[in-house]
């Protein structure tokens, strides 16, 4: 269930993860503040291109786009009616405004462009590598370490959760709308917490035994290569063009 997307061997896979993080961040910020449809369309095209280069399996891609688009469908139910503007046509007595439809369209394109970019990032970089790269980029050590331990133990905790759930199942448990169900789930969460609390102590002890003094070391070294520089220049140029297009027309 909690599986990383990463693997494969695409061109983007081999880029320096720091470069990827910075570029995805810049891209997301520019798209988030943009409002013009042509700019957004180009951003979407760019994102599609990159996801394509990253060779994300189509099935995975669609599966991961579903949650974003659920919220967007929800917004489409409102925005065309509630956004003030010129009525395009009427649904019953409710006017559907031009501006509302435009606004909802903008949001749909923005969301999907940014999500595609994020998917391209996680599909080409293992999460642990992202952590090390974030540290290199100046994110405080405490946060990065917290991130590492959380991610590492999500799997252990998830297994413990599945086992507890199985233990409930084999004893005939079926979730229903009743107090017994809620209490059983509450006990399970409690047990999960208590066990994680103990495990935390034991793991810390195991680390002490191996000389832990508050440092985690990365075995992967990052270095900027030619292709990294080229992709930075290219992407930054494209992002600047997007930004300029947006800025020129709004002024």
């Amino acid at each position, binding site marked *: 269930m909690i599986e990383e997307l990463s693997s494969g061997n695409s061109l983007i896979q081999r880029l320096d993860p720091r470069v990827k993080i910075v570029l995805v961040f810049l891209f997301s910020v520019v798209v988030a503040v943009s409002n013009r449809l042509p700019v957004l369309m180009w951003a979407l095209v760019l994102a599609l291109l990159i996801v394509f280069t990253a060779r994300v399996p189509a099935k995975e891609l669609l599966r991961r786009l579903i949650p974003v688009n659920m919220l967007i469908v929800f917004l489409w139910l409102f925005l065309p009616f509630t956004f003030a503007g010129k009525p395009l046509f009427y649904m019953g007595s409710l006017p559907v405004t031009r501006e509302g439809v435009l606004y909802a369209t903008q949001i749909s394109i923005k969301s999907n462009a940014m999500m595609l970019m994020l998917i391209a990032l996680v599909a080409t970089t293992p999460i642990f590598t992202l952590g090390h790269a974030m540290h290199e980029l100046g994110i405080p050590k405490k946060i990065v370490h917290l991130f590492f331990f959380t991610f590492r133990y999500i799997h252990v905790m998830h297994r413990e959760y599945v086992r*507890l759930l199985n*233990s409930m*199942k*084999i*004893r005939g448990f079926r979730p229903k709308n009743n107090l017994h169900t809620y209490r059983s789930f509450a*006990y399970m969460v409690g*047990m999960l917490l*208590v066990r994680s609390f103990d495990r935390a102590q034991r793991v810390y002890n195991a680390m002490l035994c191996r000389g832990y003094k508050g440092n985690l070391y990365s075995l992967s070294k990052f270095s900027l290569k030619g292709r990294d520089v080229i992709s930075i220049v290219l992407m930054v140029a494209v992002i600047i063009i997007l930004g300029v297009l947006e800025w020129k027309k709004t002024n």
Partner: protein
Amino acid sequence: MEKNELIINLEDITFSYPGGAPVLDKLNFKLHRGNRIGLMGPNGSGKTTLVHIVMGLLKPSAGRIEIFEKPAVTEKDFRKVRGKIGLLFQDADDQLFSPTVLEDVAFGPLNLGKSQDEAMDIARNTLKFLGLDGFEDRITYKLSGGEKKLVSLATILAMEPEVLLLDEPISGLDDKTKATLKNVLLDLDLSYILISHEIDFLAEITDSIYTMENGEILIDQEIHVHQHVHAHPHGVYAHKHK
């Protein structure tokens, strides 16, 4: 009920975890009423996987499962199965999640539709049967390893199963708890499958020992009894010799 009723019948079961090689590969297995089968096999050979498939906790990618001579396919089929077959998990920590022993043992009967009072009664009686009187209000989480195993067994017996699947019930247990467990199993007169790495233990309380290898079960194991050199500390643990 005839003695030779076929309780568990697995035919050509194939299973693999996501992204892994097949753990079970066209496996066949039969358990008749009254059978007491020991199951051995190297770490990672799929013993735990096998019993989880019987309980419907994992779904095989191919093959047929028949339990009590009825095919078991959907979650609904397995829900019935779970009322009749009890599984003792490899790790007792996984089995107990309620704050107190009594609540945990009563959980199964409650799910089977018993009233609060009936469930409590059943739980108390089961604990007594296992020699765990006085454990009712103990905190499950603070029990020792051996006590956890016995309470886990109680949670299962409280559902009055007809068959037990016991996944390494004795690993990490001291000799005294092992002996208790052995006596309980001999008293119960149920059919069971017992997974263990300790062949001496299996030989004592099962009729036949099967071995798992390469995703299959090898049935034609003969058990040989023979002389063997052994070490024992003197005095502390009583020990019989022939």
